[in-house]
């Protein structure tokens, strides 16, 4: 039996959210190489400094960074060389980011390109106005000290330049398997986990929500999570799908078998189901998850529906690893000389000048002054919006021009 909440009439498709997956370096590319065939709605690209490694990957969009600087031979983990590579290929990167709102960078932290170039890519993507999610694979303890040090340094760089960092520690995944497992199998499993969880998050954000969970909900939680999150996706079908999907969640190795979930202060839970899923499934999931959470934890739940899901039920769960509860200061975007000048001017504005700037923006937003040549003719009203008023004013977009004028 269905309830009004889940009837077909309430299905609505959200506008597609442009999301770009970028495999950074050899490991990043390999980890998502299987995704284009599985999730066809998204866009994919690979970025590397090693030509041979890039040539192996199946993506349509591939960018060899720093062809002149390295001759396509990789950076070898040299930060200065990484910087040169990114600077040399900056135009190609900006062209790649054009038209997207979210970029998901997938990288291995111990690699030359993933560890050194990746944070710079995150920085450029933020500069291009994109929301940046970095999905990072932490190397095994057994890979040794220098690689671990490189990984720590890279992680810090990614955190500073990303809206959120999703960690996938290989050691956590290894513990779930038998001790004799092959390294290739471990890496494959890691790729599958990343694909399922990050791909699941992307699909959720583009699906028709019955109970809304927007990109902003996710980003807000990311910012208050002090930058680091774990992300898992679990799914099941059949009569006992609820029990099985909850079991998978509570024993997931990436959540340290549920302990991270129990101690986290912020959780986002997206439920993806078919059109005939009864409301009691949502109630059961919510009840069971709340039972394991600490009392002050913030839980945001969304339910999305997709006809292709049929009897399947999937949960995509983002868990804050460290919960500050306060919004993290957003990463600083590297600016051009002109922009830096304008921004420093903004910081040095006096109170009076700031008031003047705000006043000029308010004046511009007032109906009497914002229609220019259209002020005396019949307005074009569509769905309550007066289209004769500039779109940038109605959307609240800020221009550098107003800062400069206030000065």
């Amino acid at each position, binding site marked *: 039996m269905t309830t009004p909440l889940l009837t077909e009439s309430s299905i609505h498709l959200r506008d597609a959210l442009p999301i770009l997956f970028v495999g950074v370096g050899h490991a990043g590319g390999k980890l998502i190489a299987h995704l284009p065939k599985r999730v066809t709605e998204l866009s994919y690209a690979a970025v590397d400094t090693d030509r041979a490694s890039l040539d192996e990957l199946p993506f349509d969009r591939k960018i060899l960074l720093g062809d002149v600087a390295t001759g396509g031979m990789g950076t070898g983990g040299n930060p200065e060389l990484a910087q040169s590579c990114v600077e040399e290929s900056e135009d190609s990167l900006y062209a790649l980011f*054009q038209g997207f709102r979210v970029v998901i960078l997938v990288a291995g932290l111990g690699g030359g390109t993933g560890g050194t170039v990746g944070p710079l890519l995150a920085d450029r993507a933020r500069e291009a106005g994109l929301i940046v999610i970095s999905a990072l694979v932490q190397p095994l303890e057994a890979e040794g000290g220098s690689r671990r040090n490189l990984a720590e340094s890279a992680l810090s760089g990614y955190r500073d330049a990303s809206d959120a960092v999703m960690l996938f520690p290989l050691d956590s995944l290894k513990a779930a398997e038998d001790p004799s497992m092959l390294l290739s199998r471990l890496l494959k499993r890691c790729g599958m986990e990343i694909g399922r969880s990050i791909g699941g998050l992307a699909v959720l954000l583009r699906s028709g929500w019955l109970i809304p969970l927007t990109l902003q909900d996710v980003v807000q939680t990311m910012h208050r999570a002090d930058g680091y999150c774990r992300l898992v996706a679990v799914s099941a079908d059949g009569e006992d799908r609820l029990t099985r999907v909850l079991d998978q969640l509570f024993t997931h190795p990436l959540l340290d078998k549920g302990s991270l979930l129990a101690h986290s202060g912020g959780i986002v839970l997206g439920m993806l189901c078919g059109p005939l899923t009864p409301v009691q499934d949502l109630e059961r999931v919510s009840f069971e998850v709340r039972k394991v959470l600490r009392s002050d934890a913030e839980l945001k739940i969304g339910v999305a529906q997709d006809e292709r899901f049929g009897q399947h039920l999937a949960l995509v769960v983002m868990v804050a690893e460290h919960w500050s509860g306060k919004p993290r200061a957003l990463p600083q975007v590297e600016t051009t000389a002109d922009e830096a000048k304008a921004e420093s001017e903004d910081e040095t504005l006096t109170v009076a000048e700031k008031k003047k700037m705000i006043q000029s923006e308010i004046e511009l937003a007032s109906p009497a002054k914002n229609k220019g*040549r259209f002020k005396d003719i019949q307005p074009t009203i569509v769905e309550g919006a007066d*289209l004769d008023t500039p*779109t*940038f004013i109605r959307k609240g977009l800020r*221009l550098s021009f107003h800062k400069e004028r206030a000065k």
Partner: protein
Amino acid sequence: MAHPIAVLEVGTSEVRVLVAEPREDGHLMITGIGRSPSSGVRKSEVVDLENAKVCVKKALLEAEENAQVSIQEVLLVFSGDHIRQVVNRGTINVMSDDRVITAEEREEVMEAARAVTLPHDQEILHSICGQFYIDDQTGGVLNPDGMSGSRLSLDMLILYGHSNRLRNMLRLADEAAVEVTEIAFGGLCCGLSVLTPQQKEVGGILIDMGAGTTDYVVYSDKVIALAGSLGVGGDHLTNDLALGLNLSTAQAERLKVKYGAAMVDLSSRGRRIPIPPETGFRAQEVLSRDVNTIMHARMEEIFELVKAQVRKEVKKKNFGAGVILTGGGARMNRVQDLASRVFEMPCHIGYPKEVSGLALPTESPEYASLVGMLKYGVRTRNSAVRGPLIGTFLRKLFG
């Protein structure tokens, strides 16, 4: 060659006249062109008859000199956001004993489908046949003649508009001493001009971006599934830039044409563009990023509004021909990229087809509606029975 025909479009930024000589095979040879900067027109509607009249006369005179003809009659292209559409289904019973549908019954159902009640100040402009449905069949047919059935239905797309606003356009032509023999909606004309039969068959979204309005026509399964007009166009972009960056309208227009883009260009985001001084406006520099932010917001909104209409009114979701852009807005830098992103399908610029002669009209998307009107004029002139586009407005006003 047949007698030359002339078309007139009173646009928001420019009044244009084309003169053409149709060949027997239907090919059009453009022999004359007249242009005049427009005044007294906003959003494709006359707001100052006297000023607009001067512009129309100037464009007509230029076209006459250019083509070496005297223009007495014109075909008029019009637009405006007062134009609305309704799809009306007409149904009749097939009365013959053998239940075979004849041309008479096809005409009868067309009349039934045209019978809509509109407010007293609105007039039907075009009634366009959609698909016919026989009995309870869900799939429609384009021509039911000779098929069997007991009930015949037809979906008729009816475009209607505000009588007085259309009357003002006709009065303008009258004041300029030319007789309007036919009028047609600019969006439909663009479809005739730039789309191939194959594109119409696989479906496509045609968007004509003028200075005052953005017209759109959607083809699906060989028929027009949607047509309409938004009272937003290139003038709004100019106005947005003028207000946002404290520029004169002329400064903003030049900035838009020379440096504007529909997408924010990240490689030149910090670039400063010098703006020369004008009376009442000092010289200044504006950031390229600000210019493109303003333009991107407006263009994205226009495309989103058209997309919302398509989603609401058209069942079919796949359009093999993608998005086709015409009008002056089609020249905007990176507008194809933006349209592709918003509609999630390929986008290209539509140029007038099957036309030769003077270079400007044959190579410019701005002339798509005028060339389409020429084709429409040739078609209605050659045909005793009018095609699917039937202008009833003139008959009602002057018939």
